[in-house]
């Protein structure tokens, strides 16, 4: 597999490990933002190979984990409406709502479909004119273009029975919020490569400058991650703070202009509640008011109470990097992937699930 195998080369990883050993003189705590990076670090066993005094904390970059409980309840509510086909990406299905998950709703007869693309949902709407098709549009800047495009397609086809239930979240405001939190322990970031592929890199300069904190935009393969960590530790050891791009084979500074253009046609920035973290100003996308017809939040009269989070779940501390999953008293006991108390135990990108599946190596 070209462009992949060379980034999974054990000898290159070892060279970076040796270099890291040489350059690291004191303890550092760094955060990888994206859940995909967490997954790769744990799945490839990289965390166990790093020098002991480098601590990786796992960021909030798992869309499944930060989607608010209330919104999952809304999705379940809609799925249980007789006339609705609720479509979702696969890993949202197992996330526990306050009463049930979408998977449980499906087992009870709700029409819930797993799709890989929202454009399939538009086709579904076209083929089922007597049904309302709702796409559960979660994710970061990475999934926003496709979700926005589905609205444009529905508009072009003049479909009245397609809408999206949005909970889009944005990375840079979350990084700001993390750094400015009193409990922050993070000294540098590996930024999410794919988010920058869409949005470009300009949003990160102010975070670097204002907080005097190094950021390295990083990919997802073992060699990418190792190189990103080395670049970040070098900056920290030298007392520098710069924005660097490890993932330049995919990320260019302007991002994908066409994709951003599509996002801007459909979405506008809004305040957003992050599950486990709370409300972060200007940290999400919602459907523009003039496209309300395609906004399931407005289209349907969803009347459900705001539910309380499970008190035993420390997802907030996990998502802010204050605690590691295995420091949670419920980890692997009351909380497992089969019976998750909180979202990070569900998605394969969630830090708790990644730890549960891939660690415990004695």
């Amino acid at each position, binding site marked *: *597999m070209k462009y*992949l195998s060379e980034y*999974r*080369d*054990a000898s290159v*990883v*070892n060279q970076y490990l040796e270099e890291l050993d040489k350059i690291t003189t004191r303890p550092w705590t760094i955060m990888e933002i994206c859940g*995909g990076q967490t997954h790769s670090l*744990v*799945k*490839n*066993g*990289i*965390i*166990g*190979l790093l020098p002991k005094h480098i601590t990786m904390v796992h960021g909030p970059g798992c*869309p*499944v984990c930060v989607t608010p409980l209330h919104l999952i309840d809304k999705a379940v509510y809609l799925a249980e409406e007789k006339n609705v086909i609720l479509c979702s*990406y*696969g*890993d*949202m*299905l*197992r996330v526990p709502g306050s009463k049930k998950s979408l*998977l449980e709703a499906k087992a009870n007869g709700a029409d819930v*479909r*797993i*799709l*890989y693309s929202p454009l*399939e949902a538009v086709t579904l709407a076209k083929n089922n004119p007597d049904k309302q098709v709702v796409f559960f549009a*979660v*994710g*970061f800047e*990475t*999934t926003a273009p496709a979700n926005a495009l589905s609205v444009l397609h529905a508009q072009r086809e003049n479909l009245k029975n397609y809408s999206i239930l949005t909970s889009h979240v944005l990375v840079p405001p979350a990084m700001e919020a993390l750094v400015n939190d009193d409990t922050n322990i993070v000294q540098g970031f590996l930024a999410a490569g*794919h988010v920058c592929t869409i949005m470009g890199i300009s949003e990160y300069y102010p975070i670097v400058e204002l907080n005097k904190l190094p950021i390295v935009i990083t990919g997802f393969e*073992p060699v990418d991650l190792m190189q990103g960590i080395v670049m970040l530790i070098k900056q920290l050891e030298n007392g520098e703070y710069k924005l660097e791009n490890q993932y330049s084979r995919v990320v260019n500074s302007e991002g994908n202009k066409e994709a951003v253009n599509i996002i801007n046609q459909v979405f506008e920035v809004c305040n957003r509640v992050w599950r486990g973290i709370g409300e972060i100003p200007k940290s999400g996308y919602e459907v523009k008011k003039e496209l309300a017809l395609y906004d399931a939040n407005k289209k349907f009269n969803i009347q459900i109470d705001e539910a309380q989070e499970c008190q035993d779940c420390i997802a907030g501390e996990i998502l802010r990097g204050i605690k590691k999953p295995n420091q949670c008293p419920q980890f692997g006991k009351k909380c*497992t*992937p*089969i019976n998750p108390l909180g979202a990070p135990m569900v*998605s*394969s*990108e969630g830090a708790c699930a990644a730890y*549960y*599946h*891939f*660690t*415990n*190596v*004695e």
Partner: protein
Amino acid sequence: MENKIKMHLTCPMPKFDFDTINLGHGSGGILTHKLLNSGVFDILKNDLLNQKHDGAVFELDGKLAFSTDSYVVNPLFFPGGNIGELAINGTVNDLAMCGAMAKYLSLSFIIEEGLPMVTFWQILNSIKQCCIKANVQIVTGDTKVVEKGKGDKIFINTSGIGVLHKHANINLSSIQDNDIIILSGNIAEHGIAIMSQRVGLEFETDIISDTTNLNFTIQKLLEKYGEDIHFLRDATRGGLASVLNEIAKDGNFGVDIKQIDIPVNEQVNGACEMLGLDPLYVANEGVFVMVVKREIASNVLEFLNQDENGKNAKLIGFINNEHVGQVILQSNIGGRRLVNMLPGEQLPRIC
């Protein structure tokens, strides 16, 4: 795959009064008899089935193995096979993994009304071809029809009985510390072949299901290596990871494997990356895991590599007493991680 059964409709479909199966075909009345007599019995005919008893009456010598499995695959036809082939090969292979040569099978259908007769006929033909290839006979069976919406086109159950090889001692309790784990071929091909055909997920690929009968391969191995083969299991649902976890958890051993030694076809790997699936958990229908005595492992591998069903076989790891209950994988870059059981279905990722 050269040993795939080529679907020729060598038995022309008899003239039935209906184009589709309806509730009457499961009523036990005239329609049922017509379907059975001019259809099922005729195509699957053998001495025991021809007796038309309520059950089959026969004698067998030696220690026996008995197994059952139900088949509910969707779609019914997929690259490299169909539900009928799975139903025969699956039960034949379950018996093979016990160390037995399958001899007689039962065959039961639960059909949703409205199934096109031609579909039923194609499935039945595949069943016949598979029986010939695996040298087994269908000796008893049943056909039920359920209302539209109460099933999903067709479900099949087969049970099978077979005679154990005289040197077979296949058991979790036969596994020893330091034994070697052999994997018989490329993983995840069946699951990805099915996935490539699912509505809403269609993607173009040359990957075909690996469904095949493994009974002759296993018998040859037992003939040559007998009791030094300690354990066998086909890596069907739940994939390779589940079998290894069963060995670790039910057998009270530690299992160590190396990712680099696990054979995965490049296209399959690509499809897994695209879909966000881990090939270790994807289903197989013609791949088995074998635990053998360390001293004979390389000879077994060489022998297995000569067989059509083992040409891609590899030594993938070993048994130990160190991390009991855990499967630990050394990743391609040298890191170590746990390989756990899957909680429910593998669900595709968002991004």
